[in-house]
């Protein structure tokens, strides 16, 4: 099948408006006869479900958590971008579009990204109208901050809990529809398979986690808003339950999986403390507004710090290497995430790491505390403030900005980040890859849509900070409600989709057989045992820097691990009641397939772009020497993989990316 | 309006308002008793007024009795309801970690105060009612001080009164301050109100103890 991205005709700025003007609508009376399933209730799923229900469709939502409000969007900290230009610093839709395409290293679709920028302002309006308490200035107007990779302040925020506030906003919109009976929420349910009838997505098979019951649910369209697959690395900033099952099941039923190797490794996470570690905690990128990143200049100092003989605060200014400021004077500590992460890895690999494991760098707020303290002393009318006063005032300012993050850090690490620099290290955070979708967010299966992190569309090879919230809500509030209507306009005469058909029988039988197979494995090793092994392979061979030899080895190792898993996994308990190990096993089984495709995709893409860094593709000379080398000649395309059984047999389809409005440049932050 | 009677918040407010009313009564009662320490005449005069004024006797007294009964009945009803909101109890419950003893044991301090009220009614109120309305004795405006002194001769009774006042203090320490929260007062004056309420909760019972001991040692 040839990929048709269905990008509307016309100039970039008019495409979305033109498209909306031309698409089919469903009249209100008919909407009442149409069902839509939304899987996942994060920002994309929650907002889509609420908006579709407002329009009049009958919506069923599914989430594995005990409440829609717990989806992992809730953990997003820093903020949400919007081209409101409230600061008057020259922002515009075009500039947001440009920054996002550039930040994504020219691997995203122009038209999608422009639409994203175009609706970004609406998102803020909508959320404020819902009662989302964004941070405000003393004048009562909305405050902004700046994020990595851009030169304007366009990020709206609610302290370090922006994701929480936005998700609760979407959840409140859902609640209104649940109260009206327009949304039926199926919580503690996991989607096990997608059901196709005559080639169209017409329902899902879900497992009720409490009873273990396998249920059939039909609909005229299915939206997958199931988030990313960062947990393929075992350790990531994702929630413990975040998984790829729904997307992978759809992939196995015919949806192409795009750019699986594009993974965002976030530079500022709390470093790993030991083998018991179950997850990694992010420290918001917003901290890089005020924190300066450094390692010791001399290896012997780093050594002494690692051994606990030297404290970072004892190190003189001249003995510190603020390596981001040194290497990237224009953007300094605010370079995009992929650049900051690689730079940290480079320093640590070279022996300058500062914690026990040698895998940590400092994020230091001493300078900011001084600066804010002096400023605050001035504005408070304190002449000749003492050093202690300055520190106190400065720490208060920092606390107001990042208090909850500092508290979180102190609880985990047991060190006071106001007094001693934070230790941070990159960790898997976000996956830009996902189900391939066209301009309408439809996958290659008609009637099956993918939104938010679950799709691949807007971030290219690297996502800029504060863009994930924007994309999730744009998809759910402002894109899907239109584009699904266009598709459903053909379904007004279809009537309710029956679930007693052979297609549902077959899908349910497949699901039950798979569960049976898992339960009947020999029972040697726990699910976590396999998950951790997979994670190690992924991190070591498909992590921050990749090469052909390692990737080929990874594919083989994952394949072998998968075979071992199916033979020897140990799942106690029974399948027909609550069984958390069975749930985990189903997810890990899919990660074991995705991981291999991930490596295959990374192997195929022999260029460095965004979060994907190939050691074979590096600038050899000039100012950019040692930086990532993109290869637009050969790789200016989206890799969309078609399922053909074993992941190594997957077939590559290329969607060429056409840039009509942006000139492709080397991404320089120097 | 009909929903309000059954709602948890309305009940909570009713508890607070009846409690505040009783606090006000307590203050009034204390003021009159305090005069007995300084002047026999003043005490007799005030008691005579309260004991014979028809407004006090036939309007305020029934209202007070209703207030007391309401506060207790509502207190018991809520305690039973609240207790049954968690039918399986914790094997280990560390209530002291997050709430004061007073706040967690209002029912016990309340029962102690109720028991004391029984004694108090038996001591003063019942004889008074019998004296005035059953035996219809003629009013002697100077009888009150003597009756008061007479009651505090017994060290046992005096001790019981003192213990009861300690429970009253414990009850007030949580109850008085918390009634403001219940009726929705929580603003910049709250810290001051809390301090005042706590001081009141200690000062008034201590004052009552003082009066009891004063008469015990000065009869």
């Amino acid at each position: 099948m040839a990929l048709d991205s269905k990008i509307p005709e016309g100039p970039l700025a008019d495409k979305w408006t033109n498209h909306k003007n031309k698409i089919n609508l469903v009249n209100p009376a008919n909407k009442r006869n149409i069902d839509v399933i939304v899987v996942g209730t994060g920002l994309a799923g929650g907002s889509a479900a609420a908006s579709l229900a407002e329009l009049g469709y009958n919506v069923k939502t599914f989430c594995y958590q005990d409440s829609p409000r717990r989806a992992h969007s809730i953990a997003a900290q820093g903020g949400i971008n919007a081209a409101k230009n409230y600061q008057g610093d020259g922002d515009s839709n075009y500039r947001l579009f440009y920054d996002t395409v550039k930040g994504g290293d020219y691997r995203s679709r122009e038209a999608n990204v422009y639409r994203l920028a175009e609706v970004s302002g609406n998102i803020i309006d909508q959320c404020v109208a819902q009662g989302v308490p964004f941070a405000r200035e003393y004048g009562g107007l909305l405050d902004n901050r700046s994020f990595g990779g851009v030169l304007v302040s366009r990020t709206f925020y609610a302290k370090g809990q922006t994701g929480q506030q936005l998700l609760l906003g979407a959840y409140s919109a859902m609640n209104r529809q649940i109260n009206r009976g327009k949304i039926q929420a199926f919580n503690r349910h996991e989607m096990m398979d997608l059901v196709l009838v005559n080639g169209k997505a017409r329902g899902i098979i879900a497992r009720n986690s409490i009873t273990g019951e396998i249920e059939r649910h039909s609909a005229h369209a299915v939206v997958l808003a199931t988030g990313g697959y960062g947990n393929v690395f075992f350790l990531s900033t994702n929630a413990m339950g975040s998984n790829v099952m729904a997307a992978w099941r759809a992939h196995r039923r015919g949806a192409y999986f795009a750019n699986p190797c594009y993974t965002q490794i976030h530079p500022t996470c709390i470093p790993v403390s030991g083998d018991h570690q179950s997850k990694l905690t992010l420290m918001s990128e917003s901290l890089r507004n005020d924190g300066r990143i450094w390692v010791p200049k001399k290896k012997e100092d780093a050594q002494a710090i690692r051994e606990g003989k030297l404290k970072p605060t004892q190190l003189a200014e001249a003995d510190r290497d603020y390596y981001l400021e040194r290497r990237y004077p224009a953007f300094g500590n605010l370079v995009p995430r992929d650049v900051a992460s690689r730079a940290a890895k480079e320093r640590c690999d070279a022996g300058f790491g500062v914690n026990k494991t040698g895998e940590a760098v400092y994020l230091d707020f001493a300078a900011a505390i001084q600066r804010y303290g002096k400023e605050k002393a001035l504005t408070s009318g304190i002449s000749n403030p003492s050093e202690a006063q300055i520190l106190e005032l400065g720490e208060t300012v920092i606390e107001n900005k990042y208090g909850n993050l500092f508290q979180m850090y102190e609880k985990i690490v047991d060190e006071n980040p106001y007094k001693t620099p934070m230790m941070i290290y990159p960790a898997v955070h976000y996956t830009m890859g996902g189900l391939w979708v066209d301009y309408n967010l439809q996958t290659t299966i008609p009637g099956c849509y993918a939104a938010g992190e679950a799709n691949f569309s807007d971030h290219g090879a690297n996502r800029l900070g504060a863009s994930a919230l924007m994309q999730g809500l744009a998809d759910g509030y402002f894109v899907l409600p239109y584009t699904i209507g266009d598709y459903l306009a053909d379904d007004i005469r279809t009537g309710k989709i029956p679930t007693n058909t052979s297609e549902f029988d077959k899908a349910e039988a497949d699901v039950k057989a798979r569960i049976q197979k898992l339960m009947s494995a020999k029972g040697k090793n726990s699910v976590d045992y396999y998950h951790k092994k997979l994670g190690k392979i992924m991190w070591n061979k498909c992590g921050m820097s990749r090469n052909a030899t390692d990737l080929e080895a990874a594919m083989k190792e994952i394949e072998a691990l998968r075979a071992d898993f199916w033979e020897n996994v140990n799942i106690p308990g029974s399948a027909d009641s609550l069984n958390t190990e069975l749930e985990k096993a189903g997810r890990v089984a899919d990660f074991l397939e995705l991981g291999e495709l991930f490596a295959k995709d990374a192997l195929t893409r022999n260029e460095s772009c965004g979060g994907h860094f190939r050691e074979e593709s590096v600038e050899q000379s000039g100012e950019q020497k040692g930086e990532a080398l993109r290869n637009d000649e050969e790789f200016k395309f989206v890799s969309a993989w078609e399922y053909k059984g074993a992941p190594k047999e997957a077939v590559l389809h290329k969607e060429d990316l056409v840039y009509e409005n942006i000139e492709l440049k080397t991404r320089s932050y120097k | 309006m009909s929903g309000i009677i059954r709602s948890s918040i309305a009940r909570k407010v009713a508890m607070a308002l009846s409690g505040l009313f009783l606090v006000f009564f307590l203050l009034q009662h204390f003021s009159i008793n305090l005069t007995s320490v300084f002047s026999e005449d003043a005490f007799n005069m005030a008691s005579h007024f309260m004991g014979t004024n028809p407004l006090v006797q036939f309007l305020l007294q029934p209202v007070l009795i209703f207030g007391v009964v309401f506060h207790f009945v509502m207190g018991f009803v809520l305690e039973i309801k609240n207790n049954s909101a968690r039918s399986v109890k914790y094997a280990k419950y560390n209530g002291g970690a997050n709430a004061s003893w007073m706040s967690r044991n209002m029912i016990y301090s309340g029962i102690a105060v109720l028991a004391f009220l029984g004694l108090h009614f038996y001591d003063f109120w019942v004889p008074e009612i019998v004296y005035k309305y059953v035996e219809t004795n003629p009013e002697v405006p100077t009888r009150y001080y003597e009756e008061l002194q007479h009651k505090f001769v017994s060290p046992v009774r005096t001790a019981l009164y003192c213990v009861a006042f300690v429970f009253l203090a414990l009850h007030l320490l949580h109850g008085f301050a918390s009634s403001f929260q219940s009726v929705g007062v929580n603003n910049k004056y709250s810290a001051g109100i809390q301090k005042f309420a706590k001081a009141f909760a200690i000062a008034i019972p201590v004052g009552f103890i003082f009066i009891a001991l004063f008469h015990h040692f000065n009869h």
Partner: protein
Amino acid sequence: MKLLLKIWRQKDAKSKGKIVDYPLDGVEEDMSFLEMLDVLNEQLINKGEEPVVFDHDCREGICGMCSLQINGEPHGPDRQVTTCQLHMRMFNDGDTIFIEPFRANAFPVVKDLMVDRSAFDRIQHAGGYVSVNTSGNTIDANAIPINKDNADDAFSAATCIGCGACVAACKNASAMLFTSAKVSQYALLPQGQVEAADRVQAMVAQMDAEGFGNCTNTGACEIECPKGISLENIARMNREYLSASIKG
């Protein structure tokens, strides 16, 4: 360190549960409480036993999924943290630790330490929203300036993660802190004020219908709340409710 865990085990909602002893060795200070339970579960699984079931997801203190009454306190002895952020350095070698589900009739046990908190969702369904459609042309976000103090207070109330610690800590199993946080968030913002009277009445009615106990102002909820939601919110809700009821 070496610990003795006393954990509530219950097969399902209908079965009777009991406390079971599990000695556990090799616990490290840097582990989170849930990672300590992971270690126990790994051992149980390898012995062919069913692992202890508990709710958890984000493990960074924001999703509100994790619960656990630890030594008689929700989320354990530390303050302003959820169980997933509680670290083992809060305990000593040789300690006995009671681990029980959050208890309230409105939070029935699902299995072991997992409880059903859907009562919270139903309270939110009753009125925890502003009735605004997703039109793409609501008024500009900056059209109504909002006093910073009110915006900040609304935000503080809105940080509630819905974990249920307030109910678990309260001797009356009252859900007032949770309900009042949502009521307050909207009552403090002009966008929410339009429906404020109906909202508070609907949400309180639902709260009562779920079988939560009554608030007696012990303040345990505020102390145990991992997000430090203030008791002020309860006073505000009482006010809102009274004025809504009086105005009819």
